[in-house]
């Protein structure tokens, strides 16, 4: 771990490539005609704006600065088959259970190809959680106030597309000064085998003032991606797309731990945006673990909108084969006296490619900001690559902002030390890779998730590389 990249100034986005195919608009009109009676009136302008922004932006190309290192042409080329109807049949509970996190005591909401499946779910009494398509009937006022108010359709084509086409997702409401004891496990199962089929889950979490909750947002495929010894089975072979958007509103003095785990099949494309709006004195710890998918692009955007906020962004990405995993994070310090700490570790093997872009904005009024960012990357093969770029834009003058990026191989001195105590070279190497991942895993407060990820690391290390 040697080289430190210096801050590079943000560049203006290049004008997006035009043309979102007519097929999307046609599909949208058809969708709206069918849906209009079920969707509430207030939703229509939001959707309409979504498709309009998508039509204007089109799929991003590498000419767009935000997408410079991630070529999503393989996604743009796919036929567009949004899965708009609830699946006629659901997988058996037994199958779904293979994706559970052992030992995790939780409420569970299962989504199949983006649609909520209450039959496979179990929510503890007293928790206000349901499918979004139900919530827009029963919780219309809350939804109207929050849904789509935080994300940026006008900037991100995938968010726009999701906004046009979402049909379901998770809605969780934690009333003021209450807490959800056990975490809520949102399990998004993708099992379609039709190339180009896409799901557009849309999640909304409202943690009111003084509330506490822990949420796991977990994406997986059926058949499950297997990391077992000897071989890495692909999960499903179909090139499908998950295009998820999650908005979390964190009220004053509320506390939220959110753990996103992306473990989709190696032929899947995963695009996701997480938008978090924090109010004063709130605390958020957000983990993003990315282990699956052929291309994964994850945007995480925190707005620190009140004084005395603490935020932690904690990320781990593992790439092998020809996987591409791209995290774009934005921490927007919009108010004074907030602290944000960001830790991202990437381990890349084979011909895989990693991208980390971490923006920190410190607005004019955000004096006494304490922002810290580290991006550490381990390249295990000559052909693996990483593009890591911190981007700090600071408009206040009394702030503490630090960032560091490292890219490197395993530390030879550490290997030598371990070997000098009798540990074999290969075992020493594995210990260090594992430790590099554990550094991030250990920040997750839920032991069963830590254990599951530790197990996954061991299994991946038992195979060749990562």
């Amino acid at each position, binding site marked *: 771990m040697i080289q430190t990249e210096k801050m590079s100034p943000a560049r203006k986005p290049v004008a997006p490539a035009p043309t979102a195919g007519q097929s999307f608009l046609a599909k949208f009109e058809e969708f709206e005609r069918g849906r209009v009676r079920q969707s509430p009136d207030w939703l229509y302008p939001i959707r309409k704006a979504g498709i309009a922004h998508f039509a204007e932006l089109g799929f991003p190309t590498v000419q767009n600065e935000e997408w410079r290192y991630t070529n999503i042409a393989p996604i743009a080329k796919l036929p567009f088959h949004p899965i708009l109807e609830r699946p006629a049949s659901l997988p058996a509970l037994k199958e779904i259970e293979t994706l559970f996190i052992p030992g995790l005591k939780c409420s569970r909401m299962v989504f199949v190809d983006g649609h909520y499946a209450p039959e496979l779910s179990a929510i503890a009494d007293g928790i206000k959680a349901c499918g979004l398509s139900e919530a827009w009937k029963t919780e219309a006022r809350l939804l109207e106030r929050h849904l789509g108010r935080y994300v940026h359709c006008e900037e991100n084509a995938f968010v726009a597309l999701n906004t046009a086409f979402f049909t379901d997702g998770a809605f969780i409401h934690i009333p003021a000064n209450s807490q959800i004891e056990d975490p809520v496990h949102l399990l998004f199962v993708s099992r379609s085998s039709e190339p180009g089929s896409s799901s557009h889950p849309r999640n909304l979490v409202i943690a009111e003032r003084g509330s506490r909750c822990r949420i796991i947002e977990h994406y997986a495929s059926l058949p499950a991606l297997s990391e077992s010894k000897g071989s890495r089975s692909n999960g499903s072979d179909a090139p499908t797309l998950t295009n998820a958007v999650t908005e979390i509103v964190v009220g004053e003095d509320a506390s939220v731990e959110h753990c996103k785990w992306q473990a989709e099949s190696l032929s899947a494309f995963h695009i996701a945006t997480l938008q978090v709006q924090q109010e004063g004195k709130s605390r958020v710890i957000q983990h993003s673990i990315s282990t699956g998918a052929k291309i994964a692009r994850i945007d995480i955007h925190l707005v620190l909108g009140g004084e005395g906020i603490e935020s932690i962004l904690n990320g781990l990405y593992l790439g092998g084969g020809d996987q591409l995993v791209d995290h774009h994070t934005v921490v927007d310090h919009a108010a004074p006296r907030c602290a944000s700490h960001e830790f991202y570790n990437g381990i890349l093997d084979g011909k895989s490619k990693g991208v980390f872009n971490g923006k920190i904005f410190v607005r004019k009024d955000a004096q006494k900001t304490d922002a810290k960012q580290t991006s550490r990357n381990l390249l295990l093969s000559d052909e693996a690559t990483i593009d890591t770029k911190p981007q700090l834009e600071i408009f206040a003058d009394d702030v503490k902002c630090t960032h560091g990026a490292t890219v490197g191989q395993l530390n030879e001195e550490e290997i030598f*030390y*371990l*070997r*000098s*105590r*009798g540990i074999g070279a290969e075992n020493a190497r594995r*210990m*260090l890779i594992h*430790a590099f991942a554990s*550094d991030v895993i250990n920040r997750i407060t839920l032991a069963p998730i830590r254990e599951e990820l530790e197990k996954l690391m061991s299994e991946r290390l038992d195979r060749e590389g990562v």
Partner: protein
Amino acid sequence: MSILEIKNLKASVDGKQILKGINLTVNAGETHAIMGPNGSGKSTLAQILVGRKDYSVEGRVRYDGKDLLDMDVEERAREGIFLAFQYPVEIPGVNSTYFLKAAYNEIRKHRGQPEVDAMEFLTLVKEKMKILELDQSLLNRPVNEGFSGGEKKRNEIFQMAVLDPKLAILDETDSGLDIDALKIVASGVNKLKRADNAQIIITHYQRLLNFIIPDFVHVLFDGRIIRSGGKELALELEEKGYDWIVKHPQAKELVAS
């Protein structure tokens, strides 16, 4: 019986000769001190014995009847060679207990003994920690990470206590230790001494040798041992300084040859 036999050992790195022909025999039950000014080659000798491959090496080293220079680093450790590092390496994320148990079991496996489980290991470790007066919380921390200079050095000797080597090499273990820590470390080392093992203490100063009494003292200068003697040599050296030996006619002759 000799544990270590070094014959005419020469070593160079990037064309620069550092060791120019070392001869040294260490028998079971003996403690040897190797003293010398900075840059004389003390640490290089330690590194070569433990298996560092950055040097081109000539000569012969027999350890326990086997050719040492043929062995990999980990093989040497499993055969019972231990180096207490001058600068112990911090290994973030690798838990101390996990690391040491893995090392301990590798050595046991090599000896054909069954591996120990976590409980058995913990019992052993607790007992050894007492010798070094180490705080047990260190075990839950990553290897050497955030340890003070003194804790790192004590931790090296603690590892030595657990791994029970046949030949322990202590490279400047006294540097960075205050007098109290020095006494603890020295008493630890003394307790580990037996008739069937041996110790090589590498040090710049005589201080440590007030507490670990060596059977032999060797002075290394410019890649050669220019003087060997008993424990009184260290005291003389302390009193008169290295210049005294370096300027000694016998030494001049050696260096010139």
